[in-house]
């Protein structure tokens, strides 16, 4: 099947609900991993893979495909689940996450069909996306590049080197998505290392920046559409999200940044998501 398939809003929301459920099951089975940021960016990534990205799970190396790079690699449970749901591999494979010999590594690795470039060491992914955007231009293949950034991740200096360069090179085929859930491992981003003013920073670096509610499907879709129309500069979608979104006892709880749910917690989460 060639994507995007343009699901309607109801279908997208249902897809996102199913993806949340699956990724929590996968994390519980693995016994470790990162649920908080996976859940906060689920709506953004689901909308992207089903309604925006040009890709074909039967031909992961299709030269003209749009590129998606998960720079915040620790949220790969979300990426793997979305890839499985799109048909890159079977959903049973998800239960091998983090096991010895599995193609689903603890952080993204190219052995997984659909993973373009490994990630995990934060701050490098926007540069990787920039390289892809330049390649797209050189090859005149017209593909677009999407990079998912964590909010804590933009504390890395490498991000701002890439931000400066992407606008310098006028990469309007590059779209960054900032999962702004306000938490990182050690606590609130505003307490650990304040990011604000975020929008002004990106604009000052020459980016077209728009702010949305990262859980509002119609707004997410229209933000992606708006980004496609921007000419001469890259776009960043600053998405305000809730860490652990969709499971009441995980929402805005820092502990769930990097801890898998227990089987009991999974059961409670499943009730909420069913």
């Amino acid at each position, binding site marked *: 099947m060639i994507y995007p398939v343009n699901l309607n809003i109801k279908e997208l929301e249902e897809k996102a609900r199913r993806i949340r459920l699956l990724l929590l099951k996968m994390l519980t089975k693995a016994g470790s991993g990162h649920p908080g940021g996976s859940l906060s960016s689920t709506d953004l990534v689901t909308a992207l893979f089903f309604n925006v990205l040009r890709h074909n799970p039967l031909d992961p190396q299709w*030269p003209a495909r749009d590129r998606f*790079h998960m720079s915040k690699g620790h949220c790969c449970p979300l990426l793997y689940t979305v890839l499985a749901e799109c048909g890159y591999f079977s959903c049973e494979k998800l239960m091998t996450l983090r096991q010895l010999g599995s193609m689903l590594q603890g952080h993204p690795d*190219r052995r997984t069909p659909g993973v373009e470039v490994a990630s995990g*060491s934060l701050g490098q992914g926007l*540069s990787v*996306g*920039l390289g892809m955007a330049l*390649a*797209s231009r050189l090859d005149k293949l017209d593909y677009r590049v999407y990079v998912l950034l964590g909010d804590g991740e933009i504390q890395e200096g*490498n991000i701002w080197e890439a931000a400066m360069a992407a606008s310098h090179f006028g990469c309007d085929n590059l779209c960054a998505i900032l999962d702004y859930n306000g938490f990182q491992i050690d606590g609130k981003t505003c307490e650990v290392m304040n990011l604000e003013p975020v929008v002004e920073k990106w604009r000052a670096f020459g980016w077209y920046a728009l702010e949305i509610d990262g859980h509002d499907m119609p707004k997410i879709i229209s933000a992606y559409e708006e980004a496609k129309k921007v000419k001469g500069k890259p776009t960043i979608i600053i998405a305000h999200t809730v860490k652990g979104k969709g499971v009441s006892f995980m929402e805005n709880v820092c502990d769930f940044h990097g801890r898998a749910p227990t089987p009991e917690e999974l059961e409670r989460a499943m009730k909420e998501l069913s």
Partner: protein
Amino acid sequence: MAEMLYQRDIYGKTLVELGRQDKNVVVLDADLSSSTRTALFAKEFPERFFNFGIAEQNMMAAAAGLASCGKTVFVSTFAVFATGRAWDQVRNSIAYNNFQVKIVATHAGITVGPDGASHQAIADIALMRVIPTMKVVVPCDAPQTREAIISAYRHSGPFYIRLGRPKFPTVEGKGEFVLGKAQILRDGFDATIIACGIMVFEALVAADELLKKGIQVRVINMHTLRPLDTQAILEAASRTKGIVVCEEHSVIGGLASAVDEVVSQSSNPVRLLRIGLKERFGQSGEPADLMKEYHLTSADIVTAVLRVLER
């Protein structure tokens, strides 16, 4: 007199040659294109050259992005920045993905000269050698630089190629460059000198001096540090009475360590002495004076060979 040539001149010219052959060759630099000579490529193929400004981390990770889309990417800056400043990007974005990125770093070692210690890469080989997929090449002169660049272009995966700043004396009669195959430049059974880069020429001068004393040394140009020619090392260990390793690099982690890792595992763990930087940073000075100050001259090699044969 040996012909004196810049390795970087040959590098720039070779890039242009490759650029003409293959439109997928892309070149990146970080504000040093006139020094690294990537400017030659930039002039002929402006659309395939990207200057990243003074931002090596961004450049390395962007090289990975370009390579993920099928480009063969040559990335250049000074060795100290290519390996130190951007090591994590090289490791995680380039090498872990096994991408077609060729890092060609210039101004390596103390022969950078007057710029001093901040600009003198003395641990770059060590930093690159520990990365599992990385191939590491240290050409001994300008003609070998061309061969190494073409070899890197033809082989898959990431490369680190280490070039110097000053003109290097050309080493005659060394034969064709084959990746991972050491070149035996002189044969002898008393001792072996294993060298890379500019130290190969010094080793040959030392060998001539030693011959006057009736000592016949084997001289090996170990231009490829990964994959290492372990056979050449094991043979030297079994057929000669001692090994002196010479490099314009820290004696920790570079060629001497690599050779020692092989020798210590062999059934003939011969004595091994190291010529290189011994737990000292470099400093400002003219290259020739620095070579003397840090005991990297042919005279130092002669002394070391005599010592290794003492026992």
